[in-house]
């Protein structure tokens, strides 16, 4: 019998998604939604629509809107998604939508690629979209962001089970706090979900903004940001597996492989052919899309 030291440890099997392939959102009025997003997304994309759904595709990525009379949107959450817009078009798109009465906000975030302010808009249903100036014309979705309740559980799900790689983290380094303390808070356009103002007894009653801890995960050319929730939110029933807002992750694994991997973890899922629907430990909806049945 081989000694324990002689046993070669096999690399753990992971689902290893390689792309945020889609975002699924809710919308009250599909026509108004298309009118809002068309200028942002521009040409080189395909739209399809029926009475219940509106889908925009570009390359391997898509955004799908499900018609709901009362859309579940996350206006006050960290939850948002970033769409790639050719840098030369961003200004014109923002002006066009602002002229139609849509509020535009300029915020910055903490990821190194997002340190300069960029435009955030709220679509007609209340979904928050960030316009990410990009030279990459082919991509549609740059990133998505979720709120989470606990890093340990979230990382167990995304790193251990799904096999994501950490791209960046903020609020875990001394430098993150030093930079903030040197910044005049009134002039720093940091996005609201990137800061927290819960006081410590050491603050002696002063309101001091500090970085809200966050981790960015990389899925190929796309990112998923996880931010600690700054307040408790009502969640859909825990037995609900297919819900929105939802991030669709693409994997090259077969459905059988994905099922085998997921069965090794304490996460419930629902399978629909070569798609898997599950929720992260904070209740966020995830869909895993295998490449073929």
């Amino acid at each position: 019998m081989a000694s324990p030291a002689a046993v070669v440890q096999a690399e753990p099997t992971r689902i290893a998604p390689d792309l945020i392939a889609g975002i699924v959102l809710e919308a009250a009025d599909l026509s108004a939604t298309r009118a809002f997003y068309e200028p942002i997304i521009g040409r080189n994309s395909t739209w399809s629509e029926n009475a219940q759904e509106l889908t925009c595709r570009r390359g391997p990525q898509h955004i799908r809107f499900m018609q709901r009379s009362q859309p579940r949107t996350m206006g006050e959450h960290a939850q948002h998604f970033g769409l790639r817009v050719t840098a030369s078009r961003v200004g014109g798109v923002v002006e066009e939508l602002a002229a139609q009465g849509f509020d535009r906000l300029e915020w910055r975030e903490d990821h190194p690629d997002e340190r300069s302010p960029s435009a955030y808009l709220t679509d007609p249903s209340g979904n928050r979209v960030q316009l990410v100036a990009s030279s990459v014309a082919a991509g549609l979705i740059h990133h998505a962001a979720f709120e989470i309740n606990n890093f340990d559980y979230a990382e167990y799900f995304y790193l251990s089970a799904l096999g994501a790689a950490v791209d960046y983290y903020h609020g875990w380094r001394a430098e993150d706090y030093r930079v903030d303390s040197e910044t005049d808070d009134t002039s720093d356009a940091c996005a609201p979900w990137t800061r927290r103002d819960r006081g410590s007894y050491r603050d002696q009653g002063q309101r001091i903004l500090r970085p809200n801890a966050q981790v960015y995960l990389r899925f190929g050319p796309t990112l998923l940001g996880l931010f600690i929730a700054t307040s408790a939110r009502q969640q859909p029933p825990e037995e609900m597996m297919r819900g929105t807002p939802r991030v669709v992750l693409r994997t090259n694994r077969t459905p059988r492989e994905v099922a085998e991997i997921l069965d090794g973890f304490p996460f419930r899922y629902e399978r629909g052919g070569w798609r898997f629907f599950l929720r992260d430990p904070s209740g966020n909806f995830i869909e895993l899309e295998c490449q073929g049945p």
Partner: protein
Amino acid sequence: MAEVESISHSGLRADDVRQVEEFWQSVLGAAHMHVSSGNAYLGHGGTPHPCALLGDYLFVVFPELKGATLSADGQLRGGPESYRHAFSVPRARFEAFLAHLKEEHVPFEGPVEHPHRGPLGESVYFKDSAGHFFEVCWRRDEDVEYSAVMVGEA
């Protein structure tokens, strides 16, 4: 009488708490326990401070917010002005531990041989990615069976 049992844990500071915990895991074999205040319900997202278990000893590490310098560059062994955490390994595993330090490209000082009549055999000195000093030794008395700590029966 205070009736203390043993040293329970150390609260340390680091410029990058994730990086130093990764060092403890990869170099020392520590196990991640949890991230305190990395939780929306316990304080709506306070400053996250990971906890890691090395043997039966708990380390908690906080972001270093005061900008203190922990150790001079090049110094690998905690001296009179500092402190270090010392852990022991069985003598039979000491060489393997030295090899592991080399594999992980961790600079170290030693091994240093201790007096033959003392309890310690050899020690190696190094510091983690945040500059905390560590010592790993083997003990000459490792085969001695220790008496259980008799708490409250002194």
